[in-house]
Structure formats: structure tokens, C-alpha cells
């Protein structure tokens, strides 16, 4: 069942749309539930669909189409690094190898203690701050150096 906190937040999103367009809130509802539970299981998606009164398959389509929804566990911290052209030109490859060595995982893998998952991202529209990474879809860290990456990772308990 969706938590009262989640339904309060989803209800706020629903105020943005006409009363007969509850499905419009699915993007934010999935985000809210994912933030609370760490990732989106099939059951979570079903609960969102039921709450919004939309077909389950339609909610599933949305969850699979947009790449910031995680349909499998991503550890406590999902670290996404952009490797697209502007970031590549400023050394994102070096940051990627540093992180892979440090955490001992490749892309889409979770560390054995379940703490970190590394993801390769597409352009995040912040290329002026390259190289950069995102933690748990919310915190943007820009102008990365290997030292800065170390400090950020140490800070994630």
C-alpha cells in the first residue's frame, strides 16, 4: 500500500491537472514511490496505477520508457555519470575508471554491501559543469576531479 506520505505528495501533484486527468500525475507518482522505496517493483507500479485509476500496462509503459526509473534494486546510492560528448571532452572517462576501481563494480552493478550502483547516463543538460555525476537522481555534482569524487563517496554513509 502507498504510504500516507506518498499519497499526500501524489495528491499535491494531482492538483496540477483537471480532475478527469489523473493519469497525468503518473510521472511524479512513480518518482515519489521510487524515492521512498529505492526502486520500482512491479507491485509498486501496480499500486501507483490503481491509485491513479489507470491501466497497469500504461503505468508500466511509462516506467520502462523513461530511464531514470529503476526497475531493479540500485543499492542505497545510485551514482550516474554522464559520458556524452561534452563530458567526454572534459575527462569523464577518467572519472568512470576511477569510480569503477574504487567501488569494484562496472556499470549497472551493485557493490556487494548493497551500498552503491554505478550507471552510465546520457546528457543531463548540465554540460557546462562537466565532468559530472548525479546521486540518487537528485544531487548534482559538477566539475569533478578524482579527489572530489573520493570526498563525495566518503560522504555517503
Amino acid at each position: 500500500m502507498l504510504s500516507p506520505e506518498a499519497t499526500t505528495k501524489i495528491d499535491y501533484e494531482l492538483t496540477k491537472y483537471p480532475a478527469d486527468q489523473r493519469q497525468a500525475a503518473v510521472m511524479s507518482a512513480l518518482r515519489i514511490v521510487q524515492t521512498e522505496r529505492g526502486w520500482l517493483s512491479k507491485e509498486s507500479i501496480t499500486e501507483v496505477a490503481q491509485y491513479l485509476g489507470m491501466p497497469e500496462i500504461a503505468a508500466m509503459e511509462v516506467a520502462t520508457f523513461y530511464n531514470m526509473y529503476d526497475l531493479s534494486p540500485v543499492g542505497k546510492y545510485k551514482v550516474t555519470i554522464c559520458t556524452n560528448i561534452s563530458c567526454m571532452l572534459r575527462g569523464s572517462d577518467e572519472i568512470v575508471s576511477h569510480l569503477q576501481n574504487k567501488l569494484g563494480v562496472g556499470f549497472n552493478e551493485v557493490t556487494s554491501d548493497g551500498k552503491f550502483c554505478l550507471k552510465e547516463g546520457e546528457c543531463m543538460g548540465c554540460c557546462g559543469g562537466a565532468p559530472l555525476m548525479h546521486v540518487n537522481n537528485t544531487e548534482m555534482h559538477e566539475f569533478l576531479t578524482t579527489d572530489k569524487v573520493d570526498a563525495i563517496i566518503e560522504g555517503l554513509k
Partner: protein
Amino acid sequence: MVASSKPVVKTDLAGQTLVTLRTLTEENPASLETYLKLGGYAALKRVVTEKVKPTDIITEVKTSGLRGRGGAGFPTGLKWSFMPRYFDGVKYLVCNTDEGEPGTFKDRDIIRYNPHQLIEGMAIAAYTLGARVGYNYIHGEIWQDYEIFEAALHEAKAAGYLGENLFGTNFSFDLYAVHGYGAYICGEETALIESIEGKKGQPRFKPPFPASYGVFGKPTNVNNTESYTSIPWIMQNGGQAFADLGVPNSGGTKLFSISGHVEKPGNYEVNMGMPFTELLALAGGIWKGRQLKAVIPGGPSTAVMPASAIMGATMDYDGLSKARSSLGAGSMIVMDDTTCMVKALHRLAYFFYEESCGQCTPCREGTGWVYRVIDRIVKGQGKMEDLDLLTDVSNNIAGRTICALGEAAATPVLSFIKHFRPEFEYYIQHGKSMVDGK
């Protein structure tokens, strides 16, 4: 109230003309207080309380020479005149803050440093077009900035600049922030509309265009963030004053996102028509004292230009089309002489392959094919025929698709091979890069 507003990172504003980022001169740029101090919301108040005729506003916007800043450069005043005047029901206004084409990061600075000017611009547009409800669709990657914008909306509403019966008139406008969650294609306006409706972001067949069938099937006007944010300045200073900032056919200022091999990457707002060399100098020039090799002037969907072609160019619509590329969204990706063009294209090809929504066969199959061929070249397994194959496949994507992504995907392939063919040939012959030897 906008507690999360960050301090300004950029302090050197010399050489810039601040229109859409005019709060950058201030301590706390995103706050309502700052915006009001700079004369904010006065234009909205004037048009609403004096009941300025919508057709007069459209004329002013036409005079300004403002062209859509989302990439296509369509004249904003003309677009506004397509919205049906009378419609029995709610009309919508949509702002496109979904940038995510590599090299594009200008609208982010507007929503985090000058959100109120965007809100005012949208409110003036809503008044002009009779739109009752608006959405600003912001890509999900910049969550902290989304929150700044949403806080600004609450602030504007509390101060009486959004909501019902503004300034005691019968004009009402509600504006909301909504978000994407990792799909570049949602920047295409009809995919964006699908996404607002809570669907996967697949572009619609056009016609019908959004002006007749947009959000929830209602007439909808879609503009880019920078386009709307220019409006308050135009209404305050007049369309002609805006036009005069730029050059013929390219009115006003333009925000250039400069990334890659420059000393000071970032956004620079300058008068249209500025020589490329001057703009490059603002960004500190090429980093590490190296030489310029190439520039993608307007985002990957615009043709790459070798240094020799861009050095003499001016940064405006005509200036760049004369130099055989285009202004696009003003996303300048700068590459120095250590850049391997084969590897650069490899990244771009992957991007378009990954981001194709898959609806049209030429785009879905073509982007995949192009990526696989470049991938095998990079792995040292390329053949000379591959270059013609790449050209062929790309030519067959363009023009045969529902949206412009297909064409956008073809442009880098065709222009990279055209201008840097020897590098591709060397890579194929030697199985490694001519530039970095790897």
C-alpha cells in the same frame, strides 16, 4: 523563500548583454525581491490592467524579431498568431525546459537564476493567447533547479502574479511545474505533450499541430524557456529595442552554452551577431593553450564546423547558415586539436540510437545501424566501404520520419565524415586513431 537558491557561480559578466539572465548582477538572483527591484512584473501589470489588445502584443513580438530559442528558430510572434482566438474551453500554455541534447544547458540557468522572468513571460503570453493554464516541463535530471522553480511559482502566486483575477481584473492564469524523467525525445513538443498527459514520450503525427490539438486535446502554445523569458524585456523596452540588440533576421540576445575545451565553460548571453572569435574569448579561449580544431555550433543536430569555417563566422541565424551550419539552440561544443573526431562521433551516434523513440523504422533501424558501423570502426574492424555506407544510411533517415530526431541524427554523421574524412580513413586502415594513436 527560495532558500535553495545557490549563489552565483559566474562573476565575470563583461562583454555580455543580460536580458534573460538579467538578475545575475544581483546577490540573490532567483528571489522575487530581486526581480521586483529590477522592475519585474511591471510589464505584466501594465498589459493586464491597461487591457492592452492581444493583437498589439503580438505585433510587438513580431517587431522584436524574436525567433524560437528551442532550436528551430521559428518566429515567436507568428507562432502566437496561430493560436485560435476564440475557443470554448481551456487553452494551454507550455514551456519546454527539457534540454538534454549534448552541449545544451542554457534553460537551466534561467530557471535557477531568473525564474520570475520566465513566469512573467508566460503570464504575458497567457494573457495574449487566452490560455488559462500553463505547464513548465523541466527535465528530471536537474531536480534541485526544479525545486527552485517550483518555489518561485509559490512565491509568485502568494504575491498575486499568478492565480485568479490578477490585479483585480478578470484575467486568471495558473502555472505549474511538471517534470520529465530521462528521455531526450520529450524535448520534441508533441512528445512533451504526451509526457505531460502521463504517457510515454512518443512524438505525434502532425498535423494537427499543438495550436489546434495540444495538451488534453486542447489548443496549446509551446515555446522554449529562453523564448518566453525574452518577452518581459520586449514588453518593457519595446520590440524595436530588442531587434536592435541583434542583427537583421536575428533579433535580441542569445544565450550560448559553451562546453568542451574552453577555459571557462558556461552560459554567455550576448547580442546576436557577435563574431565567433569574440564569444570564444569570453569563454577564456581554448584551454591549455591548445589550438581550435572544430566546433559544433548549435548542438549535435547542427553540422560540425572545422576551425577554418567558424573563425570568420558571426553567431546569428544567417551568419551560421552562410557558414553551412546553423544556430540551433546555441549549444557550442568546442574541440581542441587533441580531439579524435571518430571517437567524438561514436558518442553522438550512441546518443541518437539510445534516444530514438523507435516509432519510425528509418530512425529506429538507421540510428542502430549507424552506431554499430561506427562502433566497429572504433574497435578496429572497420572497412573502407563503411564510410559510404554511413553516408547512405544517414541520407535515408532524414526526411522520412515523424519528428526531426531522425534528421538530427543524420547531421553529425554526414558533417563529420565530410570535414574529417582522412581521420576516418586512417582509423579504418590502422585500427587506431590518427590523433591520439589509441
